[in-house]
């Protein structure tokens, strides 16, 4: 399988007088699962939006296989993004959402998923918050694209579903690059191949849990 490389650097993002991101370099290859940590307001979501192309800072350079993209999401087959605030309109039926996002080869797997199967004819708006997040996460992860960005995919999801999501993410990361962030850091520590902490606008490489403790992100 051909490897692809996503890179972002030269980022300057300010909100008013406040510098959010200033010295960021991040790369992700297909087959990798990368975790981003950071305190509230550190710029995790902003960084994902910058990569996706829905947000532009004073400067940024987003490249796939060394090719610059101004608005990556408008290019076909490259990227999908699960925003923290949710993705699907409430009046859309689950089955239709699956058809919109997922290619024919993966549709059956999602339609037969034990959590989704009983709800495929329901509208997204009637699903519980956790099930909606689970559905949205699977739609993005099973999309036929090279890279996937997930902003808080485990928040509001029950522990048992988090375990299921982890296995889906691991399975899909074999063929695509996944960058995800969540304050539920334990699942991220379990499944990620590489980790970064965003601190004072910069990305700092993290090797293990102790580094997060040393940098004051979590308690000992």
């Amino acid at each position, binding site marked *: 399988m051909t490897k692809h490389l996503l890179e972002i650097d030269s980022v300057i993002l300010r909100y008013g007088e406040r510098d959010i991101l200033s010295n960021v370099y991040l790369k992700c290859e297909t087959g990798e699962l990368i975790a981003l940590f950071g305190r509230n307001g550190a710029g995790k979501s902003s960084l994902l939006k910058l990569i996706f192309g829905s947000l532009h800072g004073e400067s940024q350079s987003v490249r796939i296989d060394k090719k610059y993209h101004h608005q990556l*999401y408008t290019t076909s087959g490259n990227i*999908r993004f699960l925003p923290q605030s949710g993705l699907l309109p409430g*009046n859309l039926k689950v089955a239709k959402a699956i058809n*919109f996002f997922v290619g024919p080869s993966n549709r059956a797997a999602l339609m037969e998923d034990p959590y989704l199967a009983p709800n495929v004819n329901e509208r997204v708006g009637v699903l519980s918050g956790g099930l909606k997040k689970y559905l949205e996460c699977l739609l993005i992860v099973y999309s036929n694209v090279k890279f996937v960005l997930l902003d808080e995919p485990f928040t509001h999801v029950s522990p048992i579903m988090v375990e299921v999501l982890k296995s889906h993410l691991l399975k899909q990361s074999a063929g695509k690059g996944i960058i995800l962030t969540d304050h539920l850091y334990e699942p991220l520590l379990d499944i990620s191949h590489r980790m970064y902490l965003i601190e004072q606008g910069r990305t700092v490489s993290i090797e293990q849990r102790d580094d997060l403790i040393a940098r004051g992100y979590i308690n000992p």
Partner: protein
Amino acid sequence: MMTMIRQKLLQKLKIIGLFYKNVVSYNLIFTAICVPCYRLAGLEAILPMFWIKFFGFALVAYMFYAFKARSLYFYYNLGFSLKRLLAIAIIIEAASYLLLIRAGLYFLKT
């Protein structure tokens, strides 16, 4: 190959349909306001109707962007940029305006 292209096109049309239903359809209120104007003033109402539709569209677009911008990620993920969505909305609105005038002319004649 042709089936794939047709399926992709059909999917894009469905997404546009959803966008119209969820966003642009609010502008039908302003189209509805135009109908009695046309009935009362006939062809003289065309310019005021245009401005009603224009400002109505601007208001709907602003309200949506200010309060429901997050829902745009659904369309972004499916490859539609904000510019493209706006262009689609303007085309639909222009078509509905022309249709309204055409229908009005027909009823004025009969």
